[in-house]
């Protein structure tokens, strides 16, 4: 009986020790996990006028003034469609924690039957930073511009279509499109049009917009941060502007322009001429000295 008690006692001790150890190990691992810094990931998709696509990813850690980009960290970019996933690219963040992946206009994402591509960015984390991943659902969109004059009023008609895997076009309803005119440094906004069930939006264009020397205007249609299409820009030119001649007047001769003031050129040359005249005069004396030898 005593021996049985002893065995039970020993087993109890052993269980207590194992439990305490297990608890402490899990506590330590929890502490390690807790020590890891939380990471934030931002992901954007955009398509420019030439049809090139850009996927931008930003990895940051910390908060407030201590927020910083995670540099030289690997991010895996996967593309999913119809339950099949493949790796699009393995990329590394730059010194600011950013990745910019440019895709040519003829590159095709794997799409499902609805024309949806799922792009997933995954960061595996390390001893310091926690892992994180983010997904984007992307669909391809196309804008078509038509220019109409109705009763002397100019209308820009824009048609938005979604493109599926088989290149079929489906009109997009209730899409807000920003319309603007390209100026030298930025786009001058005109208005926002909403598409109807046929994917068509119509906007009246003012008569007095200044164009180039031939009256050309570049109209820009843009959607920003759309849940499905991302940021997409498309432009088209048309002769609906007021011709403006941008003749650049030649700049005056000044200290701050390309051509120096005449007085300055004259002063420099007269000074140099005087100095070098005396130099050659003294050399001529040496020549006389040599000749008289």
């Amino acid at each position, binding site marked *: 009986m005593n021996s049985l008690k002893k065995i039970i006692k020993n087993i109890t001790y052993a269980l207590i020790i194992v439990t305490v150890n297990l608890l402490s190990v899990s506590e330590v691992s929890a502490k390690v996990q807790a020590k890891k810094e939380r990471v934030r990931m931002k992901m954007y998709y955009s398509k420019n006028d030439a049809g090139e696509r850009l996927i931008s990813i930003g990895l940051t850690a910390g908060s407030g003034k201590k927020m910083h980009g995670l540099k030289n960290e690997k991010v895996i970019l996967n593309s999913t469609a119809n339950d099949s996933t493949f790796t699009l690219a393995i990329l590394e963040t730059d010194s600011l924690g950013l990745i910019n992946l440019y895709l040519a206009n003829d590159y095709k994402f794997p799409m499902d039957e609805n024309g949806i591509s799922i792009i997933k960015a995954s960061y595996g984390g390390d001893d310091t930073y926690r892992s994180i991943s983010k997904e984007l659902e992307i669909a391809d969109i196309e804008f078509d511009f038509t220019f109409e004059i109705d009763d002397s009023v100019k209308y820009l008609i824009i048609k938005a279509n979604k493109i599926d895997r088989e290149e079929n076009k489906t009109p997009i309803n209730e899409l807000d499109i920003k319309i603007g005119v390209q100026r030298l440094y930025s786009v001058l906004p005109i208005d926002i049009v909403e598409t109807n069930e046929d994917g068509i939006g119509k906007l009246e264009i003012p008569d007095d917009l200044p164009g180039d020397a031939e009256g050309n205007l570049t109209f820009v249609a843009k959607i920003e941060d759309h849940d499905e299409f991302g940021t997409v820009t498309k432009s088209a030119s048309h002769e609906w502007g007021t011709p403006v001649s941008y003749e650049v007047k030649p700049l005056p001769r000044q*200290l*701050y322009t*390309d051509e*120096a*003031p005449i007085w*300055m*050129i004259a002063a*420099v040359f007269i*000074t*140099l001429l005087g*100095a*070098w005249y*005396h*130099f050659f*005069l*003294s*050399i001529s*004396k*040496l020549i*006389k*000295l*040599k000749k*008289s*030898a």
Partner: protein
Amino acid sequence: MNTANISIKDFVHTLEKPSKKWYFWVAVLSIISLFGIYALIRQMIEGQIITGMRDNAVWGIYTANFVFFMGLSYAGALISCTSQLLRIKWTKPLMRMAELLTVSSLIVGAPFILFCLGRLDRIHYLLFYGRIQSPITWDVIAISTDLVFCIAFLYFTHIRDFAKLRDYPNLNTANWRKKMYKILALGYKGTADQKKYLHQAHDIMAAIIIPTAIIAYSLLSLLFSMSLRPGWHSTIFSPYFVVTAGYSGVALLIVVMWIYRKTQKLEDHITNLHFNYLGFALILLTFIYAYFCFSEYLTDWYNQTETLHLLLSKFSDFSQFGWLSLFHIVFAFIVPVIVLGFPWLRSINSVTLVSLFIVLALWVKRYLIVVPTLETPFIPIQDIRPEYVNYSASWVEWALSVSGIAVIILIFTVASKIAPIIPVSEVSDAHNLEKPKLLFKTKGE
């Protein structure tokens, strides 16, 4: 000062076949100079990232060296040319040292501004696309002109000594050197006509070098004062730079005199009188320099803007430029006044030691002109990594700076092996100088 009895014979032993010590000395200087070239090649290959210069402090000790060496050249030119024009007899033995100081510091100093360029391989663009409105273009034109003129003047003062060496019987030296003396002497025989022509050439060149050197050094100051930066934008910068140049040049000339006096045993030719006279010049320049410094800092201090206040506070902050400022004040103002002001402290050695510290203090002053201002920009700095904001010279910059000093010493070493460091002909004819050309005459002249 023994002028009447001076003869080329007294110096021939310094010109004949060099000793092993001489070769060793030249080898050491050459190795140091070559190390500078290695550093420059590394900089050209790897770019300015291996220097301490960054986006904010775009200039550093290269620019300080540039200003410093140009200043030395100016002082040498001024001493030798005024001595020639005004027929000052006592400066005759010092003329060659002053001229060598001018030429060597011009040769070494001018490239330092080029080392600041990010793309040194595009330096020829300055010739093709240089803007005549830019102080940098003025500087390039003025310094290159000054260099040509000073080399010519240095040569003119050698012609008569070359003739003496050519005619010296049994000169124990290589044949190429004898041929060189013959060619460079231009057939000078000392006829009345030749004397006249040589003096005319001398006078013309001296007369044109003085304004050229003043213009060159004033233009150098415009590199700074034309900008609106606090600490640089000052109307007195041109004369201030000219005075500083004269001050550092005279101090270094005293050091050079002392070295030659000791190494070549020239006590008969470089005498107590020379140290005395240059000591007078030094104390005078100390006060003029102090006056300019006082004027500059007083106006800055009185009208200080926020940026200017920040800049000036760095000079009194011992974690920033406080120690350098203190070194400058002590050795450029206080010590010279004490040592040269009290008769019992004056001696050849003390004057030389003070001069050496003045030279160092004035290099520090150039550093204090360049770096603190660049570290105190008008616009707040966005990327505040310390290495971008605070300048600290790298080994490349120090290597090039030390090699620059080595090249100057090398030029002196080689030049004093080619011709006597004392212009023998000039000194021996000091009592029989050609009269200077007069601007006007009075009755009876």
